[in-house]
């Protein structure tokens, strides 16, 4: 399935300044893993050293937080939109 991943502005520097990246995946985990394999500098911003998705980076499928779906095992369908929403604190 081709899914779109929306990249937030702070992370665009790691994906060649694109605002969205399309990847092939069946689950959220696969989509993010494929994204991080393609853009290796992004990896440490998404995953901790143990390979777990970082807790201050939220992932949404459409407008729903995957933590309230099936987390990373949430299946994705053709044309689904995933969003990465990192915690920011500036003021």
């Amino acid at each position, binding site marked *: 399935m081709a899914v779109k991943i929306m990249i*937030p*502005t*702070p992370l665009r520097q790691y994906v060649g300044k694109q*605002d969205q990246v399309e990847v092939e995946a069946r689950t959220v985990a696969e989509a993010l893993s494929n994204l991080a394999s393609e853009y290796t*500098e992004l990896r*440490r*911003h998404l995953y901790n050293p143990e390979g777990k998705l*970082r*807790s*201050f980076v*939220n992932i*949404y499928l459409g*407008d*729903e*937080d995957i*933590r*309230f779906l099936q987390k990373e095992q949430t299946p994705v369908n053709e044309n689904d939109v995933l*969003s990465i*929403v*990192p*915690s*920011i*604190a*500036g*003021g």
Partner: protein
Amino acid sequence: MTTATLAPSSELSKDEILRYSRHLIMPEVGMEGQLKLKRAKVLCIGAGGLGSPLTLYLAAAGVGRLGIVDFDVVDFTNLQRQVIHGTADVGKSKLASAQESLRDINPNVEVVSYETRLTSQNALQLFVDFDIVVDGTDNFPTRYLVNDACVLLGKPNVYGSIFRFEGQASVFHARQGPCYRCLYPEPPPPGLVPSCAEGGVLGVLPGIVGCIQAMETIKLIIGQGQPLIGRLLVFDALGVKFRELKLRKDPDCPVCGTHPAITRLIDYEQFCGIRGEEHTSVMAGIPEINPREVKRMMDEKQPFVLIDVREAHEFQICRIPGSTLIPLGEVPKRMHELDSATEIVVHCRSGQRSGRAVEFLMKAGFHKIHNLKGGILAWSDQVDPSVPKY
């Protein structure tokens, strides 16, 4: 605590009716809504980028009592976005400067200044006298502190946050919906996410996000419209895209969940992994060198290389003569350009990024290597004041 003006509360004067006429002629606000605004007590945390538009608009709208917590002094780098302060205010306390602007905009508003750092010791006491708290802070520990104190007291927390070109806004009201911890249970480890001072921010962005916070605050006060409770608004200034995401209350939330583990305020610096001085915590075990020492090495023509690990656009702002630019991200693939037998001094803006570069290079086998303490900022202070600071 200093009080600017004492406002009577029960009704509007003739002058106030004229002042608020554009509100009064809308039935959604009207006399009832304007009186609610006049009776409202709002506490703003921070008089910076978000706090500027926020307090300006809340004062203009006629919020009766406006508390502001800040302990900072206005400096030149603030003026690009903190529009409540002017050039003549540089060096003044932000609260004195803000109070002056707000009094001019609307003398009917009682501005209460709390010139202090918000802490676990004073937060509950400060918040208890206000109806709504607005979070315009610039760091993770204070954001978690504001959230927890609001949850414990049952007060709505109007949230806004910015970074570079990205903005977020929501209303956390744990009695009716999720809180900040439901959204982000944990903060990033220190050093991974740069602050606005390190990463920059487009000056208009806090204007947009702060105005959204002001709007949400006013809606809560007058009881109109659909507040951002249970919704996260995400703004991409580059694409001019506002997106709305669902926020759900986490039943396992440590502060607002069904079995909360946090029942009183904690140590938020510790929770966010920050202890002591920002610089020393990251720099433990990294050899440092003072700017004057480097200058002496230059004057004595000692052999060494000076590596600047900032970005190319920063190199264009200013540089130390004789330095070679290798941006931090390129260090791994370009370290073959360096000779481990030569003395190496690494610098950046403030010494943070160069510390990481030195740490990396030491692991890669470079031992004659030093971090320039305080970066090019310290170089400007101690060696060459003609180098501009940014």
